[in-house]
């Protein structure tokens, strides 16, 4: 079963070059389902993603034992996905589908994506920075960042830590955005970033003055805003 899955995975990744957009979309959807198949995951977490940060329950997300050495496959998928984003012929619909696939990879196999953080983070940053991109795509990039950050709580790796300055700048830009979907997603990223900096209150609060304190004013200012839009839940 594993051999079959692996050969199918490679073949699907190669089909990223497909010219027909609908076929490409189907390939992305199939790979998304495939990623779901190789992990054990607690689906309740998907039920209400706004609540997941405040519920401190044990999580279950890990690769199935037969797929434990799947990281190199994810690496090849990510490098091919980056080409899709860079391709000027890619339509917004296609880019959104590709971002959904990247989001699933970040959610189900965060460690494998962190291995490629040197190519993934610049991608997140660039896509977010381009205001001409659809909001859904930019929101998805913030979600990818959140999933990756979440995987670093309590087991921070140096290759992720070196992007702290860039991450906090990106979050700052997101929470100041006028569009509520971007700013609320930015705040969710920030909530997770607090935990990355300090997993428990017993840990050192060393990163506070450098990363968090400059943002306190923004957080309090946002809290003081009256609820103009009832849908926003910061």
């Amino acid at each position, binding site marked *: 079963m594993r051999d079959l899955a692996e050969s199918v995975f490679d073949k699907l990744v190669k089909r990223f070059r497909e010219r027909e957009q609908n076929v490409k979309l189907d390939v992305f959807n199939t790979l998304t389902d495939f990623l779901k198949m190789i992990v054990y995951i607690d689906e309740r977490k998907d039920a209400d993603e*706004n609540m997941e*940060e*405040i519920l401190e329950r044990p999580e279950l997300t890990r690769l199935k034992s037969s797929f434990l050495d799947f990281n190199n496959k994810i690496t090849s998928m990510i490098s091919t996905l980056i080409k899709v984003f860079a391709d000027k012929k890619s339509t917004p619909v296609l880019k959104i589908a590709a971002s959904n696939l990247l989001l699933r990879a970040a959610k189900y196999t965060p460690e494998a994506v962190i291995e490629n953080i040197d190519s993934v983070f610049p991608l997140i940053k660039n896509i977010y920075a381009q205001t001409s991109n659809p909001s859904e795509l930019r929101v998805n990039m913030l979600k990818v960042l959140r999933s990756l950050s979440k995987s670093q709580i309590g087991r921070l790796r140096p290759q992720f830590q070196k992007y702290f300055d860039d991450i906090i700048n990106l979050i700052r830009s997101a929470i100041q955005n006028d569009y509520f979907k971007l700013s609320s997603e930015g*705040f*969710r990223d*920030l*909530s*997770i970033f*607090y*935990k990355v*900096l*300090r997993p428990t*209150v017993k840990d050192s*609060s060393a990163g*506070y003055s450098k990363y*968090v304190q400059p943002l*306190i004013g923004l*957080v*309090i200012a*946002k*809290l*003081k805003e*009256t*609820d103009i839009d*009832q849908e926003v*839940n*910061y």
Partner: protein
Amino acid sequence: MNAVALVSTFGDVLNTDELLQIFTQLLNKLKSEIKRQQTMKALSKIPTRELNFAKSVFYLQRINSPNILIERILSTPWKLPSRTLHSPS
């Protein structure tokens, strides 16, 4: 929700003024939601806001904040309006 996360992680490093501002705003959110309780949508938000506030106080107690601060926050003057499902005419 971000404020709850902030208090739960860095509540002990935030200064008193910042903590008071956060808790006052959380209380204000709760109050304004209760005032708007005429609609079912607003009603459904009250438990979330109450939960957020209660959780923040819980975290503050867990990080052993000085009792005087907790007392000050909890004694902030605020009064719940009488709960009615009919909008005032």
